[in-house]
């Protein structure tokens, strides 16, 4: 379908639910056995002095829940974070201890205590590809920033081609998750004052345009689709 299919493997979306999570947890556990073997579970002061790229990658995999993080990007991100934040190796050392007990990202977050800020900042760096949300902050990833994964099936990573010309007229993928609104929808407002004096000519509502070719994948449903 597009240039990303070989990045994410056979699954067109990253919304593969339990299957992905099970796979990921297995990898994290395996990863830890290697890393922990290097310098054991000693107190984190000693640990911090030897926190290396492998430890950073392991921590990153655990807190993001993504087992397939790129080791090269991890190395670059770790270097950029160290160059930006003081004693960053120590921070990763403490996070390393935190994630060593295993669990999902949500479970790790729940027990993170005063490490919560560091944990969320590390996740944000992986999602945005930049060390922080600040003007000209060092960046290490564009196409590989994790933020693009949840919509790989429906949205191009800007600058990259997504399909043959006009592909966007085809139906988008189903959302696949509930549309949750945290606030009640506003009721329709009265007729706008801006066009009170003369009603502009109306177009007939544009009907659904049938795609000229079959959908890209079985995930697509005919329009209009309704969520749950």
């Amino acid at each position: 379908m597009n240039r990303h299919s070989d990045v994410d493997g056979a699954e067109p979306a990253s919304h593969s639910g339990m299957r992905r999570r099970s796979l990921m947890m297995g990898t994290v556990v395996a990863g830890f056995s290697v890393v922990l073997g290097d310098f054991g579970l000693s107190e984190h002061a000693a640990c911090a002095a030897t926190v290396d790229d492998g430890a950073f990658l392991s921590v990153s995999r655990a807190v993001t829940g993504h087992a397939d993080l790129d080791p090269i990007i991890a190395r670059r991100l770790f270097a950029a974070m160290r160059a930006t934040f003081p004693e960053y190796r120590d921070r990763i050392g403490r996070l390393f201890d935190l994630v060593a007990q295993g669990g999902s990202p949500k479970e790790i977050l729940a027990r993170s205590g005063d490490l919560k800020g560091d944990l969320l900042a590390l996740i944000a760096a992986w999602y945005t590809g930049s060390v922080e949300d600040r003007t000209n902050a060092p960046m290490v990833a564009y196409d590989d920033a994790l933020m693009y994964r949840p919509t790989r099936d429906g949205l191009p990573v800007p600058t990259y081609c997504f399909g043959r010309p006009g592909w966007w007229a085809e139906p988008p993928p189903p959302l696949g998750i509930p549309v949750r609104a945290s606030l009640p929808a506003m009721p329709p407002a009265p007729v706008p004052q801006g066009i009170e004096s003369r009603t502009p000519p109306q177009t007939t509502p544009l009907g659904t345009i049938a795609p000229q070719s079959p959908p890209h994948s079985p995930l697509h449903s005919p329009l209009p689709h309704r969520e749950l």
Partner: protein
Amino acid sequence: MAIPEFSTTGDVSADVVVVGSGVVGGMIANELASAGHSVVILEAGLRLKRAQYVENWRNMSFHNRLHSDFQGLYPQSPLAQAPLYFPPNDYVGLSGPNGSAFKQGYLRTVGGTTWHWAASCWRHLPVDFEMKSRYGVGRDWAISYNDLEPYYCRAEEEMGVSGPHDVSLQSPSERSRPYPRDMIPFGYGDRRVAEIVNPHGFHLVPIPQGRSVEPFGDRPACCGNNNCQPICPIGAMYNGIQHIDRAEARGAVTIAEAVVYRIDTDENNRVTAVHWYDAERRSHKASGRTFVLACNGIETPRLLLLAANARNPNGIANSSDQVGRNMMDHSGVHASFQASEPLWFGRGPAQSSCIVGPRDGDFRSRYSANKMILNNISQVAPATEQALKLGLVGTELDDEIRRRAACGVDLSISLEPLPDPDNRLTLSKTRKDPLGLACPDIHYDVGDYVRNGLDAVNTQVRQIAGLLGGTELRITTDYNANNHIMGGTIMGTDPRDSVVDGNCRSHDHGNLWLPGGGAMPSASVVNTTLSMAALGLRAADSIKADFEKGRV
């Protein structure tokens, strides 16, 4: 093929000297080179490749990309600054009640600011040319819509515009020729929003765009990379560099890093030469028979003021004292909300459809019209920022990004300021550029006409958000710039209160043309580029006529 003549010291002589290499300068250069005239184009900025801009953009920090740092990827000549905002370089000094609404993002580089436009190719409405006569506000143009209509057609054909062949979707529908290509197909979000809002009078229409879904000339088809701003990575979008390339193929010569600073005039007040500094700060002279300044709405009036000489002590073309006055832009606001269903904006070109219902009506005698672009720029980055702020992790974070990216709506709303002589560009008395030339200062007040129009906008946006089940509705309260710079060399029939005539020829100098946004006496609410290009083609015709009739 006529070629400019260079001296051994680097001076140049040509039939036509064009200052500025954007869409207007490029089109005029191409027209005149095609007619057999020698043309030299002087551009203050650098000449770089598209691929470098694309790489620069991909390598920019998330924060810069999230907040639309469309200037930062374009390297500047050290001697020809343009505005930067990440961080601000304060090249343009802003003041007045709404000075911050005039933070323009224009480029000084070969090809001009259309490197980072979104290719919206709107026409003014016929009534926009007669604001004073019809609504009792603003100024009338020196020409009518019908005078400019053939040039609108030519500009659309030069730029390969795709627009609706369905008359009911045209804004305006008064056309003598069809769009060169039918409308860019709507995405799902455009179709769905049209279904919902159009029964309420909002009239969502396709934006006429300088791109197409099949090749146009030597330009490839658009494949929806969703990065029109700040750089189309594949050259499917029209950009001024395309006309520079064409003009050069017909003999025109472009000199980059050439900062024009002085204009010579003779005893009849005709322009005889312009002078520029090269990258090593050496001065050179470009002599010609006719001269065109096409440096966009800020640099053209700045240059006219900088180049004041003994015969023109208040600035070139400025006997009316109107150069630099009447500065306008579509001061606007943004509205964003989460729709109650996925609309999937971000599929296809970055701009696709626009609400034009409130574009005209009798209310314009009292307050500003507006248009609302349904932004089709990917919502992934803002969705990510919002989801991260919620402190989510793991699957919940991914789901929230997906939900917000799919349901997020961003409206870019433009209002119409009136020409006000007090909204004025002047030369800074304290700030100089690296060549020692005064930086521009601009005083700006959007005026009550816009402020009252914003009240209507707020009501309309609330209705649209309500129709789409919107939550988290935010409407910005500070006006933002839209880079549609107008007014600084305003057009009129009376040389006492205007700078150029209906052909964009300066009233004061018989062989000096000032085409582009600066000439526009009314802003309408639509992007200016197509009108600028049409004015440029009209100016080119009048220059050609002067050559044919031996007037130069």
